[in-house]
């Protein structure tokens, strides 16, 4: 059992100061538009991942002229209380504390898993590859702490290597100077690609299962890793192929002053019934596919760590038809994870069919206006 019991927001988005207690299973958050429903979800996500799902700039999250904000969350994990705190001050390193021990940003990404689905997630299907790479990187880091370290190192190697390419060295010295960076690029790049491919294989099963239930088994979702580097089962062989291709790209890379092969350029291809969703799927299919990727992650994490992540659903119920809403609610109910659902309209009629207690929270202008625990019969 893992859930967020209590949350305090100080100077976060439109919340000046607010404390909220949550229901361990289900919380339905309603209110008019632009009152702070999504901001509340964003703060929960920020506690877990140490970045927002809406912006990459921390200062945009601060109420007081971008200067500072504090978040405190009490997570309950297997009966134990974990006090997680995040403190943002402009021009300072983000401070993260767990039970008063200090940690760097992202260091606790595996320990308090929160998975969000919001209308913006349609971008995972319709936008360019960088959105999907960010998804792969976040989810792989959650499942494997070595991945996060290798990703950071890879990015560092990439920057160093690009700098060498920009330095216009004479050819003889160039090869010597590039060689150690090539070695690291290949070593780390192959590790990242293999970790991604392994995760995608597992995710395809979980997401595919969810997707076929959502579409009443009429459609089949498949995932494929599109790599700039030839993939092969043997690690050493793959490294050799990567080297070979790097060498072939040398002239082009020197002209462009940039590394043209590697996981920083790869993509995830999401297909329905064999057709790539990005050009071919309808809006409805794209939305269902994006939701399947996220709920697939929930199941994957759950199976791997025997702990169901907290699930945040931002305004999803307005987007799906009745049968899909019902399928989604069934999934949430079965998963056993704590859920937060925002909606502009009261979802009472729908949620009551689940026959369980939940908390209804009404938000107005960055304040909680009403909280009631409702019991199903």
């Amino acid at each position, binding site marked *: 059992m893992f859930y967020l019991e209590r949350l305090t927001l100080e100077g976060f988005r439109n919340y000046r100061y607010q404390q909220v207690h949550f229901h361990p299973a289900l919380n339905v958050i309603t209110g008019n538009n632009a009152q702070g429903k999504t901001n509340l979800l964003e703060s929960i996500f920020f506690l877990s991942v140490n970045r927002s799902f809406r912006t990459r700039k921390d200062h945009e999250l601060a109420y007081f002229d971008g200067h500072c904000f504090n978040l405190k969350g009490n997570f309950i994990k297997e009966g134990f209380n974990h006090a997680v705190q995040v403190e943002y001050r402009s021009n300072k390193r983000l401070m993260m504390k767990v039970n008063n021990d200090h940690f760097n940003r992202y260091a606790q990404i595996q320990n308090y898993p929160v998975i969000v689905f919001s209308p913006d997630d349609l971008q995972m299907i319709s936008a360019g590859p960088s959105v999907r790479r960010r998804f792969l990187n976040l989810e792989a880091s959650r499942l494997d702490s070595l991945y996060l*370290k290798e990703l950071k*190192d890879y990015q*560092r*190697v990439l*920057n*160093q*290597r690009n*700098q*060498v390419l920009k*330095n216009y060295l004479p050819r003889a010295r160039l090869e*010597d*100077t590039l*060689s*150690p*960076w090539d*070695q*690291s690029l290949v070593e780390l790049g192959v590790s990242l690609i293999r970790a991604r491919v392994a995760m995608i294989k597992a995710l395809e099963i979980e997401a595919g299962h969810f997707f076929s239930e959502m579409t009443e088994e009429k459609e089949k979702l498949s995932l494929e890793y599109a790599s700039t580097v030839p993939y092969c089962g043997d690690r050493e062989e793959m490294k050799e192929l990567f080297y070979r291709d790097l060498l072939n790209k040398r002239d082009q890379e020197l002209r462009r002053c940039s590394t043209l092969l590697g996981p920083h350029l790869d993509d995830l291809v999401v297909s329905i019934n064999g057709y790539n969703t990005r050009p071919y799927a309808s809006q409805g299919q794209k939305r269902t596919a994006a939701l399947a990727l996220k709920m697939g992650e929930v199941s994957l994490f759950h199976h791997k760590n025997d702990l169901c992540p907290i699930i945040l659903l931002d305004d999803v119920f307005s987007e799906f038809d009745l049968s899909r809403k019902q399928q989604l609610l069934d999934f949430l109910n079965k998963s056993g994870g704590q859920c937060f659902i925002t909606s502009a309209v009261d979802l009472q009629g729908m949620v009551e069919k689940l026959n369980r207690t939940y908390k209804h929270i009404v938000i107005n202008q960055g304040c909680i206006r009403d909280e009631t625990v409702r019991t199903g019969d």
Partner: protein
Amino acid sequence: MVYPGALKKLVEVLCLFPGIGPKTAQRLAFFLLGRSREEVVAIARAMVEAKDRLTFCEHCGSLAEAEQCDYCSDPKRDRSLLCIVQEPRDVLVLEQTGKYRGLYHVLHGALSPLDGIGPEELKLDRLVQRIEKLGLEEVIIATNPNVEGDATAGYLARLFNPLPVRVTRIAFGLPVGGDIEYADELTLSRALEGRREM
């Protein structure tokens, strides 16, 4: 907060030390003010003397009080072994293990194109000359286990390839992404024993 001028200056100077923030600097300043004049002069003199008397060894780049450091001039050290490290302080850490009796070479940095540090800045041609002159059996590369340390080790291994010398790297047991400086003596001893051929 308003300090008298001299105190303000002292706090500012103490803030230059690594890991010292304004609060600690203030504590240190008041510590100094609480000592006798003789004690404070002795502290200041120790700093200046260390700065004046310590230089880097002409041969290996370690800290030395003469042209040649204690390791280079010690006839009891094993002259068939050379250990390459990034910083002078790494030599002290390796010495504390008591496990290593060979010679040293300090690079004073690691390859980092982003910081403008290439083979010339690390004076690697002089290192190759030194290895040739010493007629070594083994070179142990002990650069830090991070991105730049790895690249430096890779570059050195390639550079030494034509030389008739065994090239190894300490790797085992070092905390990943850390500096040699922070490894404890036991892990470092094990790392020395577990070095691998490059």
